[in-house]
């Protein structure tokens, strides 16, 4: 049997034209225009110097802590957001909660920057509402217990304010897509809720969860405004270093800034490649 040759020429790629054009015009080319600056020497020639500059200990450290914060907040955001989304879809909460919660998530997922930083300072800062309340009423000094808002965990906690809602918004439709019969079939075969989730629901949701994790990671990785407003001078994370280079009043080496931007794109690319690799393993059962 000769292997079949497709008879009709496929024009399916034509359907990608609008998006490709749009992305080229308004995302890829404009970004390239600037980011090639990372490879441009003073005189105008090509150079790898700026990119090599990324491999200094302080910038590497910045990448490292950025990646760790992004991973932590993305992971926690996924877990918690998933739990909340479950509780409004399959958890049996009354239907009316769903609408307001989703709209709230829409707002909260973009509540960032100065207002968010301030809100957390006013709540969990050293003179924040909750801090003072706990101290005055219960004699608990959370700062004495090692809590610090302006730290890795503090930043992660703050990022969660937009990460969790983002997760809720993205994952709710996926949960809606779980068919009732799957749960019932599992139950009737003797599976507990946990077994159903572990053996059926999670694997089915896995590609979505991975995708959202990648999204949340990039979301945190690029979030400059909140980090800057909250821990302006304390955390050395990539977006802040980048900010200092191309936007600051002091330093000014746009080339290094562009190299940093390039580095962020590369890190995101690696993260995405990893996600796609994981997903391709998880998605064999999809047409």
């Amino acid at each position, binding site marked *: 049997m000769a292997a079949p040759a497709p008879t009709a020429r496929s024009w399916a790629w034509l359907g990608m034209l609008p998006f490709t054009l749009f992305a080229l015009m308004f995302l890829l080319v404009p970004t390239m225009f600037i980011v090639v600056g990372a490879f441009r020497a003073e005189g105008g020639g090509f150079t790898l110097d700026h990119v090599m500059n990324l491999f200094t200990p302080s910038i590497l450290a910045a990448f490292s802590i950025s990646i760790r914060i992004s991973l932590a907040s993305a992971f926690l955001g996924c877990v918690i957001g998933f739990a909340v989304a479950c509780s409004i879809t399959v958890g049996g909460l009354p239907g009316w909660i769903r609408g307001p919660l989703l709209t709230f998530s829409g707002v909260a997922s973009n509540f960032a920057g100065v207002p968010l930083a301030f809100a957390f300072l006013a709540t969990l800062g050293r003179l924040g509402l909750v801090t003072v309340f706990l101290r005055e009423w219960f004699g608990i000094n959370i700062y004495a217990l090692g809590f610090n808002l302006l730290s890795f965990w503090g930043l992660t906690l703050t990022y969660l304010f937009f990460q969790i809602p983002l997760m809720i918004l993205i994952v709710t439709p996926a949960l809606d897509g779980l068919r009732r019969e799957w749960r019932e079939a599992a139950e009737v075969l003797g599976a507990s809720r946990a077994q159903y989730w572990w053996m059926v629901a999670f694997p089915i949701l896995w590609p979505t969860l991975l995708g959202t994790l990648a999204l949340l990671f990039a979301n945190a990785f690029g979030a400059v405004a909140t980090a800057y407003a909250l*821990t302006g001078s304390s955390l050395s994370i990539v977006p802040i270093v980048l900010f200092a280079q191309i936007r600051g009043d002091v330093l*000014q080496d746009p080339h290094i800034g562009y190299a940093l931007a390039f580095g962020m794109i590369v890190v995101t690319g690696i993260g995405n490649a990893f996600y796609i690799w994981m997903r391709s393993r998880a998605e064999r059962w999809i047409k």
Partner: protein
Amino acid sequence: EVPQALIDAAKAEGTLTTIALPHDWCNYGGVIEGFKAKYGIAVNELNPDAGSADELEAIRANKDNTGPQAPDVIDVGFSFGPAAVKDGLLQPYKVSTWDEIPDNVKDPEGLWYGDYYGVLSFAVNTDIVTDPPKDWADLLKPEFANSVALAGDPRASNQAILGVYAAGLAAGGAAGADAGEKGLAYFAEMNKAGNFVPVIGKSGTLAQGATPVVVWWDYNALSGRDALNGNPPVEVIVPESGVVAGVYAQGISAYAPHPNAAKLWMEYLYSDEGQLKWLEGYCHPIRFNAMAKAGTIPQELLDKLPPAAAYEKAVFPTLEEQEAMKTAITGGWDKVVGANVQ
């Protein structure tokens, strides 16, 4: 004394595009109103939040653009003047009051010139801090636990880096890199003592109590105090030692779509009227001394300023000194303060 031809040409252009001018900064709100009122030229304000590097980048990006995105004039940190010249981003213009601008704060060709300055001061929320600090050394005392903030990130903000430098000078550092090192050591100690709050200090955090002491340009501190209007009460203190003055520089974009309006704006800024408007925002205009000598400054404006004695001690870092201490501070800051973050 402003040539009528310039006024006419500027009016013909009709618009001036500015960038990075927050209305609360040096009374820029008033300045812009005054300019509009006087010449009837529209002012198109771009990103008031921009930093100095943004401003240069905006000129670069708009090289071929004459749309409303292209800034005509910029107001940047002192060291950005020469940097902009190096990249050919500015065009020369000498205002009619050129001679009254001190030589060490202007480009001989008129590509940029210093515009105003202030000294770094402590803005203190006296609801929380009942015994305000008098000098840098005070801030290390235990009663200032969790209290002191800079008004920016020393890696990105001119204001914050000069704050570190000032502390270094106060600690006996020699102008330049040495004071930078000493300033870092000072903040390292403050950080270790738990007094430093690594948050960007601003009106909100000052009033809310997260940062009861903010190291700030005196003009920002004073207008911030006025805006708070006693709730909470704020005291602005110029430290006894380590008084550092920061100068900003003004220039016209090499690609300005409205070059004449830009020149007219410069004329306005450096006229008595423009200079006094800045002073209303507590900024010392660059012609302050000349005008004081000429007696053209109303007494009530002078009365509202911090005691003149404070300014007599003010140090104006040279470009070279700035370059040296900048390298020291931005390079070392992460190790000093970033280290406490985990």
